């Protein structure tokens, strides 16, 4: 298994993820941040995140839409319109923690993932497919 960290907010990664999301009316920084599962990126490389995203979407085809995923990730919260990456990450980190705490998890290719981070992977996979 490749274990290099790949995301760490590198300019390349941000650009790569951003481009396909430009059609959205949301600020691109929001979408960039939303599609980066921060903790998971310490364990997964880019391919693994994309594969996990695809596998999640196969399980939940109703979410196979980036707008839908962004909506689910933001929960219609004001965070959806924020450009503050730090605040977005903090919001998502809390959401992931809450998912794990409440058992809101999903098995994706065997990984026990918070539904939130699985959606982040899905968003990433749509952006990079």
């Amino acid at each position: 298994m490749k274990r290099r960290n790949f995301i760490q907010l590198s300019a390349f990664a941000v650009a790569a993820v951003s481009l396909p999301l430009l059609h959205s009316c949301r600020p691109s920084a929001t979408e960039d941040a939303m599609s980066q599962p921060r903790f998971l990126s310490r364990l997964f490389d880019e391919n693994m995140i994309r594969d996990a995203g695809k596998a999640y979407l196969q399980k939940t085809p109703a979410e196979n839409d980036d707008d839908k995923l962004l909506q689910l990730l933001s929960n219609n919260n004001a965070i959806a319109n924020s450009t503050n990456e730090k605040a977005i990450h903090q919001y998502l980190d809390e959401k992931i923690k809450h998912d794990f705490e409440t058992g809101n998890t999903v098995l994706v290719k065997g990984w026990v993932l918070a539904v939130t981070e699985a959606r982040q992977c899905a968003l990433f996979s749509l952006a990079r497919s």
Partner: protein
Amino acid sequence: MHVDTRNLENDSLIEGDICIVGAGAAGISMALEWMNTRYKVILLEGGGFEYDEQVQELYAGKTTGQHYFPLKSIRLHYFGGTTGHWAGWCAELDAIDFKKRDWIPRSGWPITLDDIKPFYPRAQKYVEVGPDDFSTAHWQEKDATLKPFAFDENKVWSKMWQFSPPTRFGTKYKEPIVNTKNIHLYTYANVVDIIADENVSRIKEVTIKNYTGKQHTVRAKYFILACGSIQNARLLLSASRQAQKGLGNEYDHVGRYFMEHLEIKTSSLWLADPADVKLYMMDFGVTKARAELAISEKMQTKYKLLNGTSSLSPLEIAENQAAFIEVWTDQKDAMEKSLKKLDKTDAKPKHLNVPKGFKAFQLFTRMEQAPHPDSRVTLDTEKDALGMPRAKLNWVLTALEKNSLRMINTIIGQEAGRVSMGRVKVFDYLQDEKDESWPSFTGGGWHHMGTTRMSNDPKEGVVDSNCKLHSIGNLYVAGASCYVTAGAVNPTLTLISLTIRLSDHLKERISS
């Protein structure tokens, strides 16, 4: 006192107050409890003091259902019994193990953990572990570097195990038993028949046999079967001259509800940073105590799970270890070699190898299975060299076991995620909820339980809460065959505790 029955005159009569059939962990513990009392105790052992292929062969039998180990090689047929290849793992059952759980058919003991608790310290002495404190706090006081994961204990807690040297009962207790006047050890004394009175309400005598062709009779006031779950059932079922279905088998429970602990690799835990895992590591022969990740009663109830715990091993190491069930055989040479290897392991240099810097671990889960009537010991038509029908084991696992394994590892994964420690990846064979098949490496811990289950109602089990056969006034069963459910942990410590409890009961009864 020791007598080799091969040297007795044929058709000898042996008489005593109590007769213990089987000199393994349960039988020897029982005998030790009666040392230096005014009662004459007869302890019968089918083998001698050393491994004997001819005697071991009496344990051979067929298996059907879920793939299982060869019956011949998973128990040892000599003085000391299966403690001869015991790994020495000791832990106490949990309170939930005794409770009726709606999601586990036929769960619920007629006794509680509180009934067993007082006997654990006495059992610990026999297996050389202690003190009687299985809290992480106690072991942290001894070694501050033992740190539990920061999990929510209402979900996943660190259950402590203590490790026996391991005590080889055959070596450790040979001299005390042989040198005690009121204990009469008879070796090469295989029970081949149990004879009751006319009403089949009391046992009069048992018949013992050995390879020389000699046969003897043993009479006592009380008889205790202590031969392990497979052999206990075999003896009761084959005693069918006076009771067609076998002794104590009026309601067709003898031999049923055979249980094992599933012991199987289930998932991997990937950490973002190396963690302090010393509390969870184990070096055979070195570590005195360690923890495994256990699921709380609350979570077991919420998700309708069987009880289980998971241990951690560095993934790089664990991935190169074959499952026992894939390599274990009953070939003569292999058995002798493995026993010699165990002796060497006992004597290896003592050093604790705590892995540093590992970020990936294999979770290996040991878990009870639900009691199932079709998981059972029956008699084969084929007979052994002494004329006893061989045992036949049908091992049955269900979807409940598989679902529980999946959820136990999922819950651990949820906690690892919640505290941002890492993520868990459940192994392939557990991922599909609809898949009820089992992989080739599915094995047990050689923990045989449940073939003479305990119950208050004679219609629901074989023995009562004192381990006496419901239908027979002076026949008791010692050991894990009395278990109603298996609990998560290895049975030895509890079966010895249960035996000591039975011993106290018998002492009271015999003196009244």
